[in-house]
């Protein structure tokens, strides 16, 4: 196990720059999730840590040693690929033991290591099978087994669950979390699924356009998103945004109505703002207070209900556990509790 430090890391292909100065300190045993939309550079960053992509500028250190110029095989890390990348011509046992055989480990030791990894993952009855004869979930387990069979300095996961169906994904997610609890191994996990990010991470690294947007615990990102991108990316359904201006000491919405919000001390009169509120924090009022919104669509999810509204002509979502919302028609009244309102300045940065 080891810490990983990334300093001013840059990556470019020819003239196209995909990572712009990434700084990240990953502590020993920490579970880090890199999250972001496709093309944000998260997979590139992971592959650079693995040594599968070269470093254009900056430095990567594993356990304090600079690894920029080390081959993947000399970095002592393990990786689980999205496609699993199992060797099709080898049995499950041979797949799992390949790294140990390359290291010329004694046969008995290999046997013990494979058996213990297989028992952790419930793969014992499958050891002689070829990958072709396994289901998707079983293949995923073998890919995990191949990673944990040796004790590497770190585990890298490149969207390992995205080829599984929803039920299996949920199950494997829990197993990965449990395994990390047991092994306490430094792990870096790439995903575009924010539920995976929220549930697995000690710290989430939200990325966009090759730049780290925010690093923090899942709840920090949920409660205090640093900018509009993080606010919109974390949470499902996504946060609602309303344009507003700061005028006369209060926040005014487009329709001119004022709204109560906790304002920062330094704010310029007349400056543009974006107001954000999560669908689950919007309150549907029945006493006539709040603002009027037209109901356009109702989506029951079983657990709760998503109401698609139109507020000043802007699409707006509300998530509620109240089953009575299923019956609403026409217009309803909603209010925004001030403690749940996020404010962003016109550059998209959080100000309150």
């Amino acid at each position, binding site marked *: 196990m080891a810490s990983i430090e990334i300093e001013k890391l840059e990556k470019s292909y020819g003239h196209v720059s995909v990572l712009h100065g990434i700084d990240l300190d990953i502590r020993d045993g920490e579970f880090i999730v890199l999250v972001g939309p496709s093309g944000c550079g998260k997979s590139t960053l992971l592959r650079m840590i693995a040594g599968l992509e070269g470093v254009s500028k900056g430095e990567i250190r594993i356990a304090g040693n600079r690894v920029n110029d080390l081959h993947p095989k000399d970095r002592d890390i393990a990786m689980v*690929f999205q496609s699993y990348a199992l060797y099709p011509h080898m049995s499950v046992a041979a797949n799992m033991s390949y790294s140990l055989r*390359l290291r010329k480990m004694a046969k008995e030791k290999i046997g013990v290591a494979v058996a213990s990894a297989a028992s952790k993952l419930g793969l014992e009855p499958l050891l002689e099978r070829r990958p072709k004869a396994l289901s998707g979930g079983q293949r995923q387990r073998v890919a995990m087994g191949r990673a944990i069979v040796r004790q590497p300095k770190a585990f890298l996961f490149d969207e390992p669950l995205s080829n599984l169906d929803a039920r299996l994904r949920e199950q494997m997610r829990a197993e990965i979390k449990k395994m990390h609890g047991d092994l306490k191994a430094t792990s870096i996990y790439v995903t575009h699924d924010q539920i995976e990010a929220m549930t697995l991470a000690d710290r989430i690294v939200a990325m966009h356009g090759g730049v780290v947007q925010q690093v923090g615990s899942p709840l920090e990102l949920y409660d205090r998103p640093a900018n509009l991108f993080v606010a919109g990316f974390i949470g499902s359904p996504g946060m609602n945004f309303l344009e507003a201006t700061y005028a006369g000491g209060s926040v005014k919405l487009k329709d001119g109505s004022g709204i109560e919000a906790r304002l920062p001390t330094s704010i310029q009169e007349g400056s543009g703002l974006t107001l954000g509120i999560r669908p689950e924090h919007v309150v549907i009022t029945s006493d006539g207070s709040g603002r009027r919104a037209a109901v356009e669509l109702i989506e029951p999810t079983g657990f709760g209900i998503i109401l698609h509204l139109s507020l000043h002509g802007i699409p707006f979502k509300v998530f509620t556990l109240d089953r009575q919302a299923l019956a609403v028609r026409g217009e309803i009244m909603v209010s925004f509790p001030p403690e749940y309102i996020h404010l962003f300045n016109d550059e998209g940065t959080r100000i309150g």
Partner: protein
Amino acid sequence: MKQSLLPIIAHRMAILCYIVFALFPLFWLLKVSVTPNDLLYSEGVRMWPSRTTFDHYAFVLRHSAFPTFFKNSLIVSASTAVVVTVCASLSGYALSRFSFRAKYWIVALMLLTQMFPLVMLVAPIFKILSPLGLTNSLTGLIIVYSAFNVPFATFLMQSFFDGIPKDLEEAAMIDGATKFTAFRQIILPLTLPGIAATLGFVFTAAWSELLFALMLINGNAAATFPVGLLTFVSKFSVDFGQMMAAGVLALIPAGLFFLLIQRYLVQGLTAGAVKG
């Protein structure tokens, strides 16, 4: 659901016609090879002679230089197939996986070599090989055949390598393999169908090549069997019976070879076509 019989019959008939069309020359080869000389011209066109004989085979095997031709052909074709497949595996892998500066031009150049009619090149090649003492030698033939087959075989192998996900090598490298170990232990075993297809393709191409064999070889000692077949043509007559018998015998190794690799070949030729 009850399928109507007519389309099925039409379908089968079409296949039958095709098979008859494709195999009839082979049948004729066989038929002539077992027809005694006295019946060859006297019976007119018949599907099968009234009396068959294996005399032609016996003569070809015992009294002609055919065994030598056969041995030469085997040496040339097998060596060419191995040399080309080894070169094409390495170069195909490079084209599939690495990006290097002159890649585009190398590919273009390789394609260009495929566009020249071979006849144009006979004289220059003779001129090159002759001072090197490589005319009238099997080594010379192997070199020439290899040179001509490597470009196409490279493209063939490249398409097989393209079909193997890059993840597999990357996984192997993270597991602790060097690039070459990953190639040898992971990629190569998965390319076996492609290798079989390439071997088979090059082997048959070399086995039946006539032009260069004819131009670069004189005398029976180093002649391959397509050249050897011509020795049955003399100034005043053609010994069809013996020629056909020799032809049938020459088909046997090629047939056996394909029987051995046909499973890989079918799998191989389609595997390269569609990524999957």
